[in-house]
């Protein structure tokens, strides 16, 4: 058996190391290490609750708006404020912009360049894929960067800047949209849609949304030359390299529900397992510290009572990451979970037939782009200039609140306790905390650790490229994971 340490694992957000045990040409066991600790939960202790809106987004530069949204939701819960419709529309638009931009960044900059690695130089498709997706040098990045930057003008308009805005408040948005600004939003979305339809999909967004089965998807791929669009290129690679057999999901998927309005989220909340959606009770969330470099004198705790005290010498510790569980179960989160819970037919069919995999995770993200942009068009249409975007309620001196939202990478929760007008406890459980969790007290590995088991090494390979695909298929955000 060979022991292999892969790190620094780049083209993920933040710092990651993966330890592999390899035997007979495949991964037998995996240990995932988050190597950076900063201590945001300690920084927040004793601050004014309002200051969470300055600190929380700065946990992460790529999920910045998601962290703001979760913080604002926790504060809103504590205050009992009711957000006006305009406020919901504006903040959901900013969150959707970040999520879609993150999916795009992941696909073009983080994930696809692995297929341009020399490991694949003998494949028939290599030359074209390398030209298009080679890290830094490929033509795809140069197409994507200007389109993404222009799309981010939505955040300039609605949130002042990205990342690290303070426009997202418990009662809505600090920025009221005027009629001419609404017109500009329509233009920006139109331009972005055009990029998606010409370059990413090579099809209208509606064509993509209407795919209902794996057969539909395969049939759609056959309709044109495989390299006609970037999505088609990925589907070709998935077929050639059996990406549907790579990085199998443990089987339980969780979503807190995405894009909340006063009557609930647009993408449903729940747990998907064994073909069924079950209701989610956030009381069932707990964090186990048994394999983290944290003081772990007590059993797993609910985040309201969570404790984070670093101990670099903790027995059995191999990461700064805690092990979150829902009713003791490992959960996978992300676009795949959101779409399964929400009942998207294509993703349901793919997971039913082949399980969660590198293939399904990537298709889920791109499908989600196609689903969200038309929603954003509707939300812009519903904005009402001249009406309120922001309601205000005072923060009680004693209160608690929880903010459960969906970041690009999945379920993000903030749990807040206020005493004497100050933050007594602030605990954050981020998407990649779920996906890249270490083992728990029962020795059950986290979602990625399970997904890596059985990864195949190609002949003569020292650093297995399959491991690169599997790890990046989760689109990890390590700075959120340990904060």
């Amino acid at each position, binding site marked *: 058996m060979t022991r292999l340490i*892969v*790190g*620094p*694992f*780049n*083209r993920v*957000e933040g*710092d990651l*190391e993966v330890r592999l045990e390899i035997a007979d040409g495949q991964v037998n066991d995996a240990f995932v290490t988050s*190597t*950076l*600790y*900063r*201590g945001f939960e*300690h*920084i*927040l202790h004793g601050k*004014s609750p*309002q200051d969470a809106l*300055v600190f929380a987004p*700065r946990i*992460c*530069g*790529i999920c910045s708006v998601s962290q703001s949204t979760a913080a604002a939701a926790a504060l809103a819960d504590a205050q009992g404020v009711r957000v006006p419709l305009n406020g919901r529309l504006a903040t959901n638009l900013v969150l959707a912009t970040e999520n879609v931009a993150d999916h795009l*960044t992941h696909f073009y900059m983080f994930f696809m*360049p*692995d297929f341009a690695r020399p490991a694949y130089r003998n494949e028939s498709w290599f030359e074209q894929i390398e030209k298009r997706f*080679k*890290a*830094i040098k490929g033509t795809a990045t*140069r197409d994507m*960067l200007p389109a*993404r*930057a222009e799309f*981010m*003008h939505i955040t*300039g*308009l609605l*949130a*002042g*800047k*990205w*990342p*690290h*805005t*303070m*426009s997202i*408040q418990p009662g809505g*948005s*600090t*920025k*009221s949209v005027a009629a001419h600004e609404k017109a500009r939003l329509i233009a920006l979305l139109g331009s972005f849609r055009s990029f998606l339809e010409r370059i990413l999909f090579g099809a209208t967004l509606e064509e993509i949304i209407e795919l209902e089965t794996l057969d539909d998807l395969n049939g759609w791929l056959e309709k044109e030359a495989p390299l006609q669009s970037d999505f088609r290129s990925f589907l070709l690679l998935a077929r050639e390299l059996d990406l549907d057999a790579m990085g199998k999901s443990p089987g339980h998927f969780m979503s807190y529900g995405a894009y909340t309005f006063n009557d609930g989220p647009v993408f449903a909340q729940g747990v998907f397992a064994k073909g069924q959606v079950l209701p989610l009770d956030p009381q069932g969330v707990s964090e186990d510290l048994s394999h983290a470099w944290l003081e772990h004198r007590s059993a797993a705790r609910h985040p309201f009572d969570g404790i984070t005290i*670093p101990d*670099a010498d903790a027995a059995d510790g191999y990461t*700064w990451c805690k092990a979150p569980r829902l009713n003791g179960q490992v959960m996978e989160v992300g676009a795949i979970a959101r779409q399964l819970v929400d009942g998207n037919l294509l993703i349901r069919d793919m997971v039913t037939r082949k399980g969660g995999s590198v293939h399904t995770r990537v298709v889920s993200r791109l499908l989600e782009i196609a689903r969200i942009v038309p929603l954003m068009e509707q939300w812009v249409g519903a904005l009402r200039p*001249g009406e309120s975007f*922001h309601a*205000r309620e005072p923060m009680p001196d004693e209160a608690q609140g929880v903010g459960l939202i969906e970041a690009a990478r999945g379920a993000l929760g903030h749990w807040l306790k206020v005493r004497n007008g100050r933050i007594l406890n602030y605990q954050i459980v981020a998407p990649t905390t779920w996906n890249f969790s270490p083992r728990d007290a029962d020795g059950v590995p986290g979602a990625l650790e399970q997904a890596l088991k059985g990864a195949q090494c190609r002949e003569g390979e020292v*650093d297995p490229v399959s491991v690169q695909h599997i790890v990046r298929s989760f689109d990890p955000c390590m*700075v959120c994971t340990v904060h």
Partner: protein
Amino acid sequence: MQVNGSRKTSPKNLLWLQSGGCGGCTLSLICAEAPDFLTSFEAAGINILWHPSLSEESGRGFLEILNSILEGNTPLDILCLEGSVIMGPKGTGRFHMLSGTGLPMMMVLKKLAARAGHVVAVGSCAAYGGVTAAGRNPADATGLAFDTKEPGGLLGSDFRARSGVPVVNISGCPIHPGWVVETLLHIASGYFSELDMDRWGRPKAISDNLVHHGCSRNEYYEYKASAENLSELGCLMENLGCKGTQASGDCNTRPWNGSGSCISGGYPCIACTEPGFEEPGHTFVETPKVTGIPIGLPMDMPKAWFVALASLSKSATPKRLKVNAVSDFIRVAPNQRAGKTKK
């Protein structure tokens, strides 16, 4: 006349590392436009040896690049650090071990800095410690050559890169993409010197400006017509903690993400380009006052004059501004009678 502005230079090797931060400065850089940042780097001959979010090399491939630099086989012209230097716990640096090496990142940074032509701190964390150093600074975060406002940090105040230039601090939380692109291109041109930096190590091209310049709320400021709550249109200085008149930066003359700035987004400047901004000593969106007068006065303004001018301008505030300052939308439009403006 013959004009020859070009200078024959070899490609400049750039290595970008991240430590105790959020990665937001890279994400902001990716929003660079007209042209995108890769095109700008190419035009200036900046060759990216490795960047954590961009490069193909992972694990072993990166370690080969790192060793080649440390052994002197690959010249390192520009070392960029994003995120603070993590010294904790107890000076060991174990809160951030460089993956795959078993070494604390702070040790690797020290070795690399000794080899670098220029050392650039990208963002307020790398420059001064920043948000990561807030509260009781749980990870013992510090900057490359400053520990918040004190000279020192990882490398010490006497540090000079191979070029003889101290650490260049492109502060901001996050940086504006234009600040990084322009500073790196200035450095790559070979003409950047210590004379181009202010007392906090910041490029003067940026820090000679104030966030206040070009503020879209200037008329409210002039008449001290102040917003009382976030989302209202008035000046944010008197009540809502805005530090635009004191903070360095060109945020309102060089828009963010197309058209934005913190203030145009409806919330105050928190002076994120200034060392120590993370601990203002008050709630960020509240202005601390003594006898009704804000403690933080506009840059270079004597207090007596500020008080005198403020009370004078308040007495002259037009009704339009008084009303609009506390509204979410313009309620009273300027009184534009035909022929009223003079030619």
